[in-house]
Structure formats: C-alpha cells, structure tokens
C-alpha cells in the first residue's frame, strides 16, 4: 500500500510539526503569565511538577534550546502534558480524558450525519439541476456564511427559551448519576439534539455545495453518457457512475475541512455548555490555563489526524486506482 504509506508518513510529519509548534509558541510569546501562575500556587506545586512545567513552558533557560526540545519530547511521549491550573492539581491528560468522550460522541455523530446527508442531497441537486431543488443552494450559501456559534445562540433562544421544548445546555440533567440507566441515556440524547442538529445544519451546506459542483462536472463526462446509452437504470447511472466518481474529491476534502468543522464545534460546545473539549478550552482561556490549552491543541490535532487516516482508507476503498499503484 504505497498510497497509505505515504499518507501515514505525512501524518507523522504533521504530528511532529504540531508538537514543535506547541514547543515554540510559549518561547516566542514570552509568556510570563506562567511564572505568575507558578507564584500563585507556590508551595502547592511539587518540585517534580514544577520541573515539568519549566520544561513544558521553556522557563528552563539555563539549558540549551535543543536540550529543552529533547526534554519536551520526553514529557510528551510519557503522556505528561503538565498540570491544569483551573482544576488544580489535576493533570491535563485527566481533564482532557474526562471531556473527550463527549466531544467525540457529539462531533462524530453530527459529522457523519452531515457528510452522508450532505453528499446525498448534493448528488440529487447536481443530478436534477434546473429543477425546484436548485432553490436549496441559496439557503446553503446562507448557512455556510454564518458562524456556528451564532446558529447555536439562535437555536437556544428559539427552542429552549422562547418555545422551551429542549434543554438549554449541558450534557445531561444535573440531578442524574452518570450510568447506563435508561433515564440517564435518554437525558443525554435529549441534551444532544440541539447542539447536534445545529452542527449538522451549519456544516452540511459545505458538503452539499461541494458534491453538487462535482456532480455537475462529472455528469457531462463521456462515461456517464455511455452508461445512459447502454440503457442502465437512472439510479444505477446516478450512484454507480456519476456519484461514485464525484464523491472522491469529497473524501479528500473531508480531510481538509475537518479542522474547520472541529473548530466550529469547539465554539458550539462553549455556547451550549456541553462538557466536552471545547468547553474546557473556553474555561482554559478564561483562567489563562496554558498547559490545558496546549494539551487540548495537541489532542485535537491528533484526533483530526486519526480521522484523516480513516478518510484515506475510505479513499483507497472507493478508488481502485490507488490500489493499483501498490
């Protein structure tokens, strides 16, 4: 699998770049707030934790930059991202570990719905262009120009305040104990409807537009005409010939737009007080919790890279040409 190998090498490079960027930012920005935070918790930070903070934030100035870099990698590879200031003295990894499942669940399901639904709608609009379905296009243009969080604000004010059918925010009722009881699960689902639908609504337009434009381009190809001439059923031509070719740029576009979708979702969580990574990031900004912010950045980047690997596998399955190269 030469194709996948190349991609994997690229993702390793990206991961290295992300860690390196993370290493250099505090050193370039001269973040002396870190020093003041250490002062704030004087006596409460163990000498070992203090040392790892020094290493992570480049306050260890008596060492050479290279030595700092090596130490930094040592800390990262041991899964030590430092200690969160806002929820002191919990390690950053623990804070992230608590909130990651919520984000993965919400973003994962919403993104899958948006990609699949958007591609299907795009196929239909592109195939039957010039009918009433073209009216969907201006609507999607509107939704693709609106920031996610504003849609969230509107959704809350309409469905939670003005017409209170759904909860305002959070991930489950405060009175419930997390567990696999029906009560808890249904509460979780109820709380996920509004943020999930808003993410789908905000991100689906990009997929519709992309798919539609590719369909328009692909439907005028000769092989589609030939498929029609052979007398294949319209559905077969639409999905098996036109859509199958039109969807390839969607899959590679998925990798590129994922960072954008994730960014939008982070802000969405802040609006809905959904206890995922985004809310933690928001709290970290408020509390100037730099270790948490940087840890979150690394984790999100890694998650995006994993999603990219999955998209590449899907690409290989869809496009026989990549398999032939091997």
């Amino acid at each position, binding site marked *: 699998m030469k194709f996948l190998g190349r991609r994997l090498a690229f993702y390793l490079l990206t991961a290295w770049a992300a860690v390196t960027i993370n290493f250099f*930012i505090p050193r370039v920005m001269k973040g002396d707030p870190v020093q003041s935070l250490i002062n704030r918790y004087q006596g409460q930070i163990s000498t070992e934790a203090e040392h790892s903070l020094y290493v992570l934030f480049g306050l260890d100035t008596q060492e050479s930059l290279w030595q700092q870099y090596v130490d930094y990698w040592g800390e990262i590879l041991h899964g030590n991202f430092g200690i969160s200031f806002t929820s002191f003295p919990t390690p950053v990894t623990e804070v992230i570990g608590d909130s990651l499942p919520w984000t993965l669940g919400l973003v994962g399901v919403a993104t899958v719905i948006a990609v699949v639904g958007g591609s299907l709608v795009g196929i239909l609009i592109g195939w039957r262009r010039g009918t009433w379905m073209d009216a969907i296009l201006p609507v999607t243009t509107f939704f693709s120009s609106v920031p996610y969080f*504003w849609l969230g604000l509107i959704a809350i004010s309409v469905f939670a*305040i003005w017409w209170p059918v759904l909860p305002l925010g959070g991930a489950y009722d405060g009175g419930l104990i997390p567990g696999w009881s029906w009560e808890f699960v249904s509460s979780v689902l109820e709380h996920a409807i509004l943020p999930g639908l808003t993410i789908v609504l905000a991100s689906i337009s990009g997929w519709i537009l992309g798919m539609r434009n590719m369909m328009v381009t692909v439907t005028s190809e000769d092989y589609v*005409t030939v498929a029609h001439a052979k007398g294949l059923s319209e559905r077969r031509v639409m999905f098996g010939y036109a859509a199958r070719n039109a969807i390839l*740029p969607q899959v590679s576009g998925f990798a590129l737009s994922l960072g954008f979708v994730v*960014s939008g979702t982070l802000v969405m969580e802040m609006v809905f007080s959904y206890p995922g990574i985004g809310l933690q990031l928001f709290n970290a900004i408020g509390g100037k919790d730099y270790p948490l912010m940087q840890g979150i950045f690394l984790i999100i*980047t890694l998650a995006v890279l994993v999603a990219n690997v999955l998209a590449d596998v899907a690409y290989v399955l869809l496009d026989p040409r990549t398999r032939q190269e091997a």
Partner: protein
Amino acid sequence: MSSMPVGVVDAESEILAPVEPTRTPGARAKRSRVAFLSSGKATAGLVILVLFAVFAIIGPWVAPYDPNEVTVDLLLPPSGAHWLGTDHLGRDVLSQLLVGTRSVLLVGVLAGVFATLLAILVGVSAGFLGGVGDEILSALSNVFLVIPALPLIIIVASQAPDAGNLLVAIVLAATGWAWGARVLRAQTLSLRKRDFIEAARANGESTARIVWFETLPNLTAIIASSFVSTVTFAVLSQTTLAFIGVTSSSDWSWGTVLYWAQANQALSRGAWWWFIPAGLLIATLGMALTLVNFGIDEFVNPRLRAAGLSGRGLRKQKITPRIGFTAVRLDPVGARAPGAPTAQGSTASSKPPGTGSTPTHQGSNPTDTEAAR
C-alpha cells in the same frame, strides 16, 4: 472539453457580443470584466461589500452614540432613540456594531492580503521549483491545512500580551494561507507545461519575467478567489475569537458585541436585539464574499456558469436541463441542431485559444468544491 451545454451557451454569448475586429488588450479586459459582472451574484456581492466598506470608514462618525457610553437606559428594546436597543450597561448596540465594522473588515482584509501574498510565494515557487523544493513546500502547506486552525490561533492570541487587530490578522494569515498555496501550486504546475511558457523560455526570458509577466496574469482569477476565501475565513475566525473573549476587549467588533451578549445572559433575558443583528451582519458579509467567489468560479469554470443558470433562465434560452447531463435545444436553430459540436467549433473559431479565461479552466475544480467552506 466534452460539455455540450457550455458550447451552446458560450456560442450564444459570443453571437450576442459585438464582434471586435482587432482584439486589443484593453478590449479583452473590458470584455472579461463584463463577463464577470454579467453574473448577477457577483454584482450583488460586490455592492454589499462596498456598502460594508463605506460603513467601515464612516462608521465611527455616523454612530449616534459613543459605543462605550454607559447610560441608565438598561437593556431597552429597539426604539426611535436606540434603533437596535441598548445592552446591560445602557450602551447603544447600533453604535457598537457601526464602530465594530472597521475592526472586522480591517482584520479580514489584512489577513487576506498577508495570506494571499504568502500563498503566492509558496504556491507559485513550489509549482516552478519542482523536485525536492516542491515536495517540501507542498508538505508544509498540507501540514498547515490539516492542523486545526482555531485552537492554534487561540493559543497564540491568548499568550500575547495584547491581541490587537494587527496581531490577530497576522495569526489568521499564518494559519489560513495553505489552501490558496495548494490551489496556486496545482495551477502553476499545469501552466508551466503550456506552450506559451515554453516559448518564453526558448526566447531566453528570465525566470523572474516568466513568473511575473507570463504566469501570474494567468493566475489572477485563482488568486482573487483564494483572497476572497481567506477574507471569509478571517472574518468568521475574528468574530469567533472576539466572541470567546480572546481578542483585545477594547476594540469593538461584531464578535465583541456577541461576547457581551453571551456573558450577560442576553438569551434568557430575551434581548434578541443584542445578538441577532450582529449575527445577521456576519452572515450578510459572509454571503457577499461567497457570492463574489461564485462569480469568480463561474467566470473561471464555464461548466458551472452553465449550471449556475436557474431552471427558468435555461428555459428562456430554450435549453431544457434533462437529468443533469445533456442540454437539449427545444427548437433546432437552422442546420446546427442538435448543434453542440458545431457550436463548439464556432466558439473555437471566434475565440482564439489561450485568451481570456481559457488557460484557467483545468485544475480549477478544487476551488469550486471548496469555495463555500
């Protein structure tokens, strides 16, 4: 190009256009400008953009109140005195939005300019260098494409002592240039192998001249489109940053208004005038930018131009869009019917290859699929 509808539509517009015996560069520029504006979308987008630009300049002067002026008129709904109501400190929301327009546009345009320059630098040199240099530059832009921008921007902006407009614009440009570079590289690669570049090289023109006078003019549409996309990205990101309170709070922008609204429970207090207008402004600006980009896309890629016509528009031209792939003329015009190959022939004869937008047709698909994201 096997697209029949394009041939038909192009042929018609060629017939309608006054035939110019000599194609001077000026005449060609005029023709292509008209072609760009003939798409109503682009015109509408440009008009909205100009309006916003005017308000960005005169906003602070026409604002009825000082946006920071605290009064006793707390949280008033819209009225004659306060067209968009007041916030929790009695400050006029309309004035805040008017004053904030400047920040939004300034950051958007600055970030767009910086990012586009960077994209041209990286993309065009990657396309021209080839080999190892190309590999390195492509890998660099791909890395920046994959790394999620917003958390990175947040880290940088929140560690800076004071995240003013200029810093935000620079950070946004540093994270938002990669897509443009990728598209420009692809297009440069395809241009580099064209005959006219080969001819220039055979004439002994210097590389600098080939880049500046042979290549860049042919990339104009793509550069413009990538500029507009970056501005859209920057405007949305700037608003998001201001909304979560990362940017300097002394600068008013639309996101700052939303930040105050969210921080003071505008939602549960039912103060819709506080957060709806700001969002609508962002949406309008974003739509205007997207419309301009549609115009550029359709100008660059004639297939989309044909597809962009509404069903009624197509029917007016006696073209029935049928199951998406073939445009069928209802009444055969003379002997040309069904006419597509002949029509294409006439297009080719009346338009010398290599003029206007023709060189940019291929390789522009990434722009189309990504334009709206």
